[in-house]
């Protein structure tokens, strides 16, 4: 089959015209929604971060994730996502780290707060797929076998890799693997903070 120039023009022309119109439409919709989406995202991040710091009304500044930090986190079997510097009244008071670690049914994404001495100030779960009724107890911060809420027991702990379920971390019975997942994440977050220097 011989392809004529006219045919190519027709095919390419129509496709281009349709694409242009669609692009224009998208541009308009994006213009309307962009600011709103950005505001919502910022709000969500702030809520998640505020849950793990000591001072209410702290400010968060996103920091650059260095290779050393990523490596330190993965050495503790966690995947580093984001790091924020936490400031209160203009002074740096600590860090908030978003990490992902493997749980029992899938990845657990969590935010871990650390103070300037690199001790945990709070742990909050962003998303998870743990078994409802078992692993979800850990996600909901239910009391562990010793009676303390399972996520709160991390507060004050420090030293990446030193947190071990069974010795200084107490699991919820039946949900050991989920507790281990969170512990991995906390260890990784601490390692990342330590790699900051």
């Amino acid at each position, binding site marked *: 089959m011989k392809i004529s120039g006219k045919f190519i023009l027709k095919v390419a022309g129509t496709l281009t015209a349709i694409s242009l119109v669609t692009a224009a439409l998208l541009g308009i919709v994006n213009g309307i929604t962009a600011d709103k989406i950005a505001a919502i995202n910022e709000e969500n991040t702030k809520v998640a971060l505020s849950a793990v710091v000591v001072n209410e009304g702290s400010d968060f500044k996103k920091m650059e994730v260095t290779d050393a930090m990523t490596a330190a986190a993965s050495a503790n079997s966690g995947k580093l996502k984001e790091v924020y510097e936490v400031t209160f009244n203009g002074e740096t008071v600590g860090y908030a780290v978003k990490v992902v670690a493997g749980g*029992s*049914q899938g990845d657990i994404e969590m935010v871990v707060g650390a103070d300037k001495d690199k001790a945990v100030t709070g742990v909050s779960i962003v998303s998870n797929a743990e*078994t*409802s*009724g*078992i692993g979800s107890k850990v996600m909901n911060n239910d009391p562990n076998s010793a009676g303390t809420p399972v996520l709160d027991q991390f507060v004050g702990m420090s030293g990446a890799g030193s947190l071990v379920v*069974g010795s200084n971390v107490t699991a919820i*019975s*039946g949900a*050991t*693997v989920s507790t281990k997942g969170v512990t991995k994440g906390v260890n990784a977050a601490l390692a990342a903070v330590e790699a900051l220097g």
Partner: protein
Amino acid sequence: MTDYKNLKLMASSSPHIRNNEDTRSIMLDVIIALIPALAMAVYNFGWRALSVTAWSVICAVFWEWGYCKVMKKPQMIGDLSAVVTGILVAFICPVTMPYWMILLGDFFAVVVVKQLYGGIGTNFLNPALAGRAALLACYATAMTHWGAPGTRAAIFGSAADVVTTATPMAIMKEGDFSALTDAFTVGDMFIGKVGGSLGETSAMMLLLGGAYLLVRKVISWHTPVAYLGTVAVLCLISAPAGANAVTYMLYNLFGGGLMLGAIFMATDYTTSPVTKPGQIVFGIGCGLLTCFIRRFGSYPEGVCYSILIMNCTTWLLDKYIRPTIYGAPKKEKKEAAAK
């Protein structure tokens, strides 16, 4: 009324099932073989073990009868296969399992897994194990609520106040083999004085039942031996540092649902290969998967899922592992095998 005498070749994809009378006597043998383990369960967990099993049998037979009634199919409850399914479903649930959950588990096993695929001889998954998998996905909390050995669960009433324990497999999963050897001796594991599902704890009683089935030629040794052998060998070579390899192997063999699965479930006619070599491959596959799930998976126990997964390969094993045709020339043999 159904005339059982004249029911022949009802639904038989497997060559083993020739008529209703045959199935019935085989199932009767299986039921007899399960009685020692049931006796141990009663000794271990109290009379509730018996009431749960009886209830499960009633449910399974009811669903089988009800499905055939509704779908206007000939009644098959006389072949006793539903009774066996009912006993096995109860055996792989904790003794504290609420009765209504057992009812649902039997529904899934008998109606969804067995009858919807055409009834006895045509289902591709082991009904009891599929029922357990469904219950575990539905009610994870109730399915992991293990009564401690020696506790007496009330026949009626709440299960919440029963003293619970971690199963040997769960203790091992937490990565501490020495904690397991402290909690239970090898003897406890063998006799079955440990926490776990109702009928799975006593390796001794299950082996006794298995021996009876072997003597009666209801099952052949191929699948159980291949299954248990694979687990034993893998455990010997992969024992954790500091643990005695033989002890580790024995705990793994006697722990969890391995004996129950290897003797009573992996040997299910319908869902396992027909040929002896096929059965050996089937057993080895189950053994590998069980060890992998126990060691690397997030569940402490892997028998249920390994047998279910291998069930799905049965058609493949039956297709490629065929006996050679007696007396045929070599070339024809090959062609026949390739068909």
